């Protein structure tokens, strides 16, 4: 079992969020969702807001990952996350409010609406809400 593990490190500006040997990690990138197993080709990806699923030997863990980038190497993955939260750290009400606000902004769509920003905000809020459920 042990030879299909690789090292995963998730680092944020404030702390080392996660560091352990894992079986698989799945997360959202700007090009779509990817899942990484040991022996992946070297790859650099830019993170898009979404849920990150970490599969350890003993089970899976989820967190909301919002921004950053990742360096994937054969035997290690480093995710330089700007924002990442465990479900227990998320304020569900705030996330729901943020989702409603972003949806409202996208619906209203005045010329001065920053669509890209509203969309990222919506994605971010959805990631937070989904990871709790």
């Amino acid at each position: 079992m042990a030879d299909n593990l690789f090292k995963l490190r998730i680092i944020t500006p404030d702390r080392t969020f996660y560091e352990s040997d894992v079986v698989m990690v799945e997360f959202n990138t700007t090009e779509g969702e990817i899942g990484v197993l040991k022996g992946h080709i070297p790859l650099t990806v830019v993170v898009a807001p979404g849920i990150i699923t970490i599969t350890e030997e003993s089970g899976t863990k989820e967190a909301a990952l919002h921004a950053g980038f990742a360096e994937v190497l054969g035997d290690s993955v480093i995710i330089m996350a700007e924002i990442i939260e465990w479900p227990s750290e998320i304020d569900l009400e705030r996330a729901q409010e943020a989702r409603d606000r972003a949806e409202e902004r996208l619906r209203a769509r005045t010329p001065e609406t920053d669509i890209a920003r509203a969309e990222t905000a919506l994605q971010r809020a959805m990631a937070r809400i989904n990871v709790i459920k």
Partner: protein
Amino acid sequence: MASMRDIKRRKGSIQSTQQITKAMKLVSTVKLQRAKSNAERSKTYFHAMYDTVHSILRKSGNLEHRYLKTGETGKTGVIVITSNRGLAGGYNSNVVKLITQGALANEDLAIYAIGKKGRDALGRKYEIAQDYSDYIEEPVYAEAMRMSSQVLKDFEEGRIKEIYIAYTGFKNTVSHIPTLLKLLPIIPGQEPDAEKEGELQDEIENNTLMNFEPEEDDALDLLIPKYITSLIYGCMIEAVAAENGARMQAMDSATSNAEEMIDKLTLMYNRARQSSITQELTEIIAGANAIS
């Protein structure tokens, strides 16, 4: 010999100075504790960011990207991190010296000042492109982001051709190293670490080339601003810790110098008092002798 009253007054003034330096030392000790734990927490990210970006670039072979080439026109941009307040020993002047007497001394510089002391010292000789002095009080990631987008804009528009950052590295409480770091263009693989060299060799032998998703250019467009931001942020946090460390040391030695002077003055005062008593006694005895 100075009169007793003069010595006493002098001693009083030194004593009140000592009280101030002692209080300042206590304040910066407390601030240092906070800044130090901040610095330690962000250090991992900061170093991992540096290592990761360099390792990505090393594995990428020949990249053609605007952030990886020296600009053709413009000045050399230097982000200078100093403090807003003085009384921190050599803290500010060491950073300033790094620029005025270092490798960049003869270049045409554009200074991005973080910290009033550096701005004032360098403003006489060089152009101050931007002044972010307020940010150093409480470094926030969002502010580092604003700064990095500004310098990157200047770089892209050809106002500056290279970007350096000058700050004081915080090694531990007593050792702070003024450091000049090149931010842009990024030259991958400038690590003298022997172990890393070995790894690099292995990587080249394995012939694994880095893949990018999205395309190289787009990925680097997103990645490098993040890299610059986190380096600026990390440098600011370290500099704040170093500033408080330097001030604590300076105030500590000021306090002990004051202590020493007070001791000396106490001795002088006692001598003066003794000699004045002796003199009075001699006069009284001489007077008594003259009468009898």
